[in-house]
């Protein structure tokens, strides 16, 4: 039986201090499970050595000429996976927030449940997350529900597993952090099966300084509402 080819997509911006460890740990876990994989780092116009460190650690690196945002970098990585005929693609954060065990376990969960878009939810078991982060993420998940009608406990999670069908059909239009919510909406529009599985959130001082803060939520909400209105009145 032909083994499943898996692409691990890591969008990264100025992550030279963490990306090496993330790649090496993931390589070790994936090799232990005898997965046919490729790690793809999308360097989103970093000003530091992210690309060089990622290449040295053994990842395939795609360099963005311009910084486009998390959504743009994720789209590039998934496009690469689709063009190279991977069976599954998994996105994860470059700051070490996701455990490699959870990333690799997502493959089994996605295969068993035959899900097209599987989200690793930090809120199904929120141990390790600060109350502020829990509140912020629950708030954005609620906003995602109000604007798009999607019921997800952790709409902002960066750990997602995409089936071949999702790689071929799923597209979105925003390129900042708001793409997390828009992606779910687009998946629902085209009839993809969406599900969640529990993951651990690993917060270090470094990873806490990255990612979204709760004030950024206002910009995300503004962008999502604008997108929704444009869809209603536009082409």
């Amino acid at each position, binding site marked *: 039986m032909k083994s499943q080819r898996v692409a691990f997509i890591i969008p990264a911006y100025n992550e030279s201090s963490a990306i090496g460890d993330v790649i090496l740990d993931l390589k070790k876990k994936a090799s232990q499970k005898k997965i046919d994989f490729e790690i793809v780092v999308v360097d989103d116009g970093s000003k530091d050595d992210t690309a060089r460190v990622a290449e040295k650690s053994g990842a395939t690196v795609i360099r963005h000429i311009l910084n486009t945002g998390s959504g743009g970098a994720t789209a590039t990585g998934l496009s690469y996976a689709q063009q190279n005929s991977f069976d599954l693609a998994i996105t994860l954060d470059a700051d070490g927030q996701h455990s490699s065990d959870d990333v690799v376990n997502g493959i089994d969960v996605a295969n068993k449940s035959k899900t097209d878009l599987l989200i690793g939810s930090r809120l199904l078991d929120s141990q390790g997350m600060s109350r502020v982060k829990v509140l912020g993420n629950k708030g954005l998940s609620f906003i995602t529900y109000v604007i798009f009608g999607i019921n997800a406990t952790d709409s902002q999670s960066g750990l997602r597993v995409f089936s071949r069908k999702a790689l071929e059909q799923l597209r979105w239009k925003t390129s900042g952090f708001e793409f997390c919510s828009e992606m779910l909406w687009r998946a629902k529009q085209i009839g993809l099966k969406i599900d969640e599985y529990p993951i651990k959130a690993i917060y270090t001082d470094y990873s806490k300084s990255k990612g979204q803060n709760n004030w950024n939520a206002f910009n995300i909400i503004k962008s999502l509402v604008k997108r929704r209105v444009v869809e209603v*009145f536009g082409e």
Partner: protein
Amino acid sequence: MKHLSFRRFIFKSAFWIVVFFGLLLAENLYDFLYKEGLTQTEPLSLFDVIQITGVIYVFYLVNRLYVKVDLLERRVQDLHQELSIRVSKK
């Protein structure tokens, strides 16, 4: 995409039908509201109607422009994405 286009067709058709009947029956509606005491505003002059129509049309044009700019932005993003992948493959 077909599903989206059909919904958009329905929405746009409904929108323009409402606009059409709104314009067609505006005078009758005004007479009805005035007779029932639901409005006390003076009837609009021809100049007022033209002015309001012009303002609404400007909003419509702005929306169309915004949609075109949005589409252009996405095409540039797609181009950038494809270029980045091809350059990285070399």
